[in-house]
């Protein structure tokens, strides 16, 4: 089943007088259960593509359809709700809420969704256990290592039961052991629970794990390899 369908995507930034052509016509689609990496050098346009996939940025032309909904036609308030229910995010710098515990960070998204306390409690526990942090529920981010924080971020991304998870350079701040650990967990979730992961990365370790590698350069798809 197709989760994402991108057609004829273009993005031009009008920064001062100079126009920056960040994405120059991309057609792509992602199926449910993919574990894909978008790779490319800095400035290739991979973060721009990811932002548009995540509904954080609007395409200049072209369409992005997610689960049958053309998100380029949504108003910004509708987009926020769309993101809340359909897309999970994992960021390079973890970006947890520092005043909340691991459990509260994961719970927060479900709280925004208006889920009941009981539902929140069960799912939060489940998720943190599945990322190996069942014993750190009440730790604040400052008490967790980078790898642990990123695992909380993964649990948070999954809390809303999204259609797919976007991860922008999730391993860039992690050492090899933490990276392996994180990737293993994501892969396990991908295989066992059929969760779609899309990475933007230039980390070779991620590329190695990914089952599909899309290479982007100068805003165009250079290659699209399914292993």
């Amino acid at each position, binding site marked *: 089943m197709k989760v994402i369908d991108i057609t004829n995507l273009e993005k031009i930034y009008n920064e001062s007088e100079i126009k920056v052509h960040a994405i120059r016509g991309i057609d792509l689609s992602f199926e449910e259960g993919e574990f894909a990496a978008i790779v490319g050098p800095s400035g290739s346009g991979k973060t721009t593509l990811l932002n548009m996939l995540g509904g954080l940025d609007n395409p200049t032309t072209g369409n992005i359809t997610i689960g049958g909904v053309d998100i380029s036609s949504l108003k910004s308030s509708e987009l926020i709700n769309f993101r809340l229910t359909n897309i*999970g995010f994992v960021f390079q710098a973890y970006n947890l809420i520092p*005043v909340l515990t691991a459990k509260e960070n994961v719970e927060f998204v479900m709280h925004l969704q208006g889920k009941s306390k009981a539902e929140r409690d069960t799912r939060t526990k489940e998720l943190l256990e599945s990322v190996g942090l069942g014993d750190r529920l009440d730790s604040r981010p400052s008490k967790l290592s980078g790898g642990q924080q990123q695992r909380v971020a993964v649990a948070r991304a999954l809390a809303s039961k999204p259609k797919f998870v976007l991860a922008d350079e999730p391993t860039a701040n992690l050492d090899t052991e933490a990276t392996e650990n994180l990737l293993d967990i994501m892969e396990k979730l991908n295989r066992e629970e059929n969760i779609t992961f899309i990475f933007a990365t230039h980390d070779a370790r991620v590329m190695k794990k990914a089952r599909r590698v899309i290479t982007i350069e100068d805003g165009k798809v250079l290659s699209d390899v399914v292993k």
Partner: protein
Amino acid sequence: MIWSISWKNVWRNKIRSLVVIVAFTFGIFGGVYMVAVFVGMIESRVKLAIGNEASHIQVHNPGYLDNNELKYTIEDYHKYVDQIEQIPEVKAASPRIKILGMASTSGNASGVMINGVEVDRERQVTGIAESLVEGGGSFFDEDGRKPIVIGEKLAKTLKLTYYQITSEDLERLAERKNLRTVLPLLDSLTDKQYRSEADMDKALISLLGKAEADKVAFHIKAASIKYRLKRKIVLSFQSLDGHIAYDAFRVVGIYKTGNSAFDGLNLFVRMSDIAPAASMHSGQVNQIAILLTSVEHDDMVAEQVREIMPGMDVQTWDEIMPEAGMYTSAMNYYLFIFMVIILLALGFGIVNTMLMAVLERVKELGMLMAIGMNKKRVFSMIMLETIFLGLTGAVLGMVISYGLIWYTGKTGLDLTSMYQEGFEAIGFSPMIYPSIGWESFFQLILLVILTGVLAAIYPARKAMKLNPAEALRIDM
């Protein structure tokens, strides 16, 4: 959860938040306490003025108010006073002959308001009889020919006071700790008489030096002032039939109300002594002063008195002393202005702090919006944070203010040694009991919340307007 996050966010940068909270606490405390002191001063001034000067209600012949002349009289006052005293809310009524005249002694002369009173009734209406100074005789207790009771201020003007440090005075002064060191020196002045305050000051300065004398002179003079009772005062005034009348009286009492302007002007004689000299026949007075059981009944009783005495002018205390009523309402207005200014300054402090809090959290706010926190929630989170910040300080400030107002309201703030003369010159008591009404407190809470909300809008809008994609890209 938003409430709890906002509250926790307040404490992310503890020092910065505490600085704002402390600023709020002191700002509110300063404003509230200052106003409470003023309100306390005014309340005691109004009490004093009602008790000793104006009473609750005064009745005059309408002409008397335009022109304080003897000829504007109330006739047959007995029957009216009896009727007025029938009103249950009336405690007592005192009829008075009021004559502007001149009082002279061998030492000096001064313009005065002669109050011819029925002693027993006057005792019930004003506090003058209880305000006699120590060593200052009594309020017409002794029978004798033509007694007169005058204020201490007038006594000084008429040179009916002198200063003499007696051994009893020294004993009394010894109770004051701050005087212990100078007391042995005062022995050399003991039993010497000084005719005026200036002479006494000079003697103290030459004995103690200027700096020390300035500190202690007030207490020493207060303890050593003596009154020349039984001296003769000649009153001269225009009688009802137009002649200039002279009559001699003997000083039997010296009072002090705490309003030296009043004390310097008003003297009291028996109505039966002054009426013949003024060619007034019995039943004629210029004023009836009425004291009520409580100030709340003033308008209601005034209405009844108007029915009893048609054609006469009946005024309530706030009409007699519009300045006293004005002080009270002006104070509420000042409180409002003070607090608006203080809160305005504090509000800008909050805007600054919250703007910093938003700017250093751009990335986090971007993340929150990316994962699905809508603008309304982001806006309310920052609003709540701001309001919590202000409210914490405000609550602390109000608790401290209330505690201190309550405490000093019981014990009183004693400014006697510093400012007694100054305060009494304008009719205020140097003993201040700070006080503030609940409605002012509630008004304040509303003002603080309003400040918090207004100060929050700008930072909260700034947060709400962030573009998540751009915010996330920012390196911090």
